């Protein structure tokens, strides 16, 4: 039972972290109709900024806040310099251009920070485990991630559902042309949305940094998962991103945790332990395939095209 609680927390933490990435991706994809492969690079930048600021300031929290603003700024700059030229173009052009951005960011990071990667050490109050229930130990830092991401999810919900900007964002996701025709400064809205997406990716990156360490290309693996979540949740839907991310986080963690044991009941132990990691990493894509068959638009589709 304690193992199950621990694994559920692991799944929740991973899912919420993925939500941060997927939320930004789905916003940009849904509102600006822009496929942004470079989203993972912003995640990487968030981690690098945080590691650098932590060395300069000596404070983890301060570094996290500074890094958040830095990625927001970089995101807005990227939108103004590069993304503006891509609106209304073919998706293939987006893929090509943003793939180019990945190479650009990877190489820039190599030039600025060097190829060996960095680490972001945790302060002592986070770098330990706490007893959450009698007999259940859990990493304090992973708990902190859960708290931070949950509050971000709530504020994002309030921002999108309760504010004027949020209304425009939702309107943009459903019908971009009409929003523009109604006299909304769509350019500024786009810059803001892209910056917000970048900041969310940066937040995910900086929070993963103490767990996974900071290195070039760290965003590429996780980006695939973020895309899967966007597809499952429905493009442009924040709620869909949250549900999809939690699904993926839980399935991935639970698959890794319990699938090998289940498999051992039917297969020989060696065959089971070899096949289990491969099969459990397939579960997510299986889920995506099922969702695509049942609801091709995703679970919470906003598009009315």
């Amino acid at each position, binding site marked *: 039972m304690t193992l199950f609680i621990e694994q559920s927390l692991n799944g929740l933490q*991973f899912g919420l972290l993925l939500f941060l990435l997927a939320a930004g991706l789905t916003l940009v994809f849904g509102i600006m109709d822009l496929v942004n492969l470079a989203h993972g690079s912003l995640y990487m930048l968030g981690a690098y900024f945080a590691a650098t600021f932590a060395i300069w300031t000596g404070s983890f929290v301060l570094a996290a806040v500074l890094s958040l603003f830095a990625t927001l700024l970089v995101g807005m700059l990227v939108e103004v310099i590069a993304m503006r030229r891509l609106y209304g173009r073919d998706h293939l052009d987006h893929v090509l251009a943003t793939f180019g951005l990945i190479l650009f960011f990877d190489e820039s990071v190599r030039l600025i920070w060097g190829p060996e990667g960095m680490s972001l050490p945790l302060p002592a109050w986070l770098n330990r485990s706490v007893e959450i229930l009698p007999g259940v130990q859990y990493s304090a*830092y992973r708990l902190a991630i859960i708290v931070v991401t949950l509050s971000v999810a709530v504020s994002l919900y309030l921002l999108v559902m309760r504010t004027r900007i949020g209304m425009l964002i939702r309107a943009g996701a459903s019908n971009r042309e009409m929003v523009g025709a109604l006299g909304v400064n769509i350019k500024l809205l786009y810059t803001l949305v892209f910056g917000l997406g970048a900041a969310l990716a940066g937040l995910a990156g900086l929070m993963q940094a103490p767990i996974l*360490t900071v290195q070039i290309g760290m965003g590429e693996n996780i980006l695939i998962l973020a895309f899967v979540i966007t597809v499952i949740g429905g493009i442009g839907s924040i709620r869909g991103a949250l549900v999809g991310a939690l699904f993926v986080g839980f399935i991935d963690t639970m698959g890794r945790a319990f699938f090998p044991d289940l498999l051992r009941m039917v297969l020989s132990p060696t065959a089971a332990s070899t096949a289990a990691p491969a099969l459990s990493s397939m579960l997510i894509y299986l889920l995506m395939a099922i969702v695509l068959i049942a609801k091709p638009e995703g679970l919470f589709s906003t598009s009315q095209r």
Partner: protein
Amino acid sequence: MRKALIAAGAVLLLAAGPSLAQQKTIKIGFVTTLSGPTAVIGNDMRNSFELALDHLGRKMGGLPVEVIYEDDAQKPEVGKQKTDKLIESDKVDFISGYIWSNVLLASLKPIVDSKTFLIIANAGPSQVAGEMCSPTVFSTSWNNDQTPQAMGTYMNQKGVKSVFLIGPNYAAGKDMLAGVASTFKGKVVGQELTTWPSQLDFSAELSKARAAKPDAIFVFYPGAAGVQFLTQYAQAGLKDTIPLYTAFTIDETTLPRQKDLAVGVPGAQQWVNDLPNEANKKFVADYMKKHPGMRPSFYGAQSYDAAMLMASAVEATKGDLSNKAAVTAALKKADFKSVRGDFKFGNNHVPIQAFYLQDVVKDDKGEFVLKTVATIVKDNQDIHHQKCPMK
């Protein structure tokens, strides 16, 4: 005028022809990872190989040496492509490098078929030591399971009664976990293989290890994954409760990021930077002089030895690499000063060598360094050599 030019050209060609034939160069292909998160390993191997060439005066047996470095991006299919290119279009005399067992296994067939001499500088899949051994394939590293076997022996000495094994799901990961289990006399209470190289979050595995309540955890995570594992192991609060034993998880390429997390975590290795032989002292000192702020790792030490092994064979055959049997015989003597101290090749061309226990300490400059604590086994030979038909 035109005739004169042609004549002049012909004369030049004639003059150049014979000297070209005399000035044969030794061409070496070196396949390693030079991009991505594990590029730091490839860099260390290249630095060490280059240092060996410096020490050799950039000549082997009096002949100039040309090295072509290729990046496998840690992917078997890329490694195979680069290997094919080195053999078919560059027509190299020697091929070396290979960090990853899965990359090596994918690339092995074209190398063996073309009878190009292969000096493996790291990867040690059990197949190559066993049924797939070949007269033209040599290793300056180890077979995958030797190092974890030494660790298993050490865990017996420490009185460990039960262990939980964690490693990546690829050729080397499976060899490593099987290696520990083969010498460890206690109970293996659980074993987890993780998706490689994409899975970097080990929360589910660490939770299972904690729930299994073992005396110890054994891991094998080479490169950056080793940094991630140690970090998460500490964050999960396991550092104070379940001791960790490792193979190829803590080395000079990862230590600058593992820092104090690695202190007190034992590892087994056939080479440690402080081994007290002359060749090693020269290697380590000159490496640190040439690359300030960096320290060589065992990957580098093995690459350095690979260059020295090649040079010894070119020297012994006087640069005539066409007689394959003679080159094999020369290589098999291992007639050079290895930085790990003396070793000899087994029938399968895998070294028979000692394995040491290494630990992390802070030196007088406040830097984290590895040091030798004890010799775990001497003259250790891999268990697969009987499956190799070579004598």
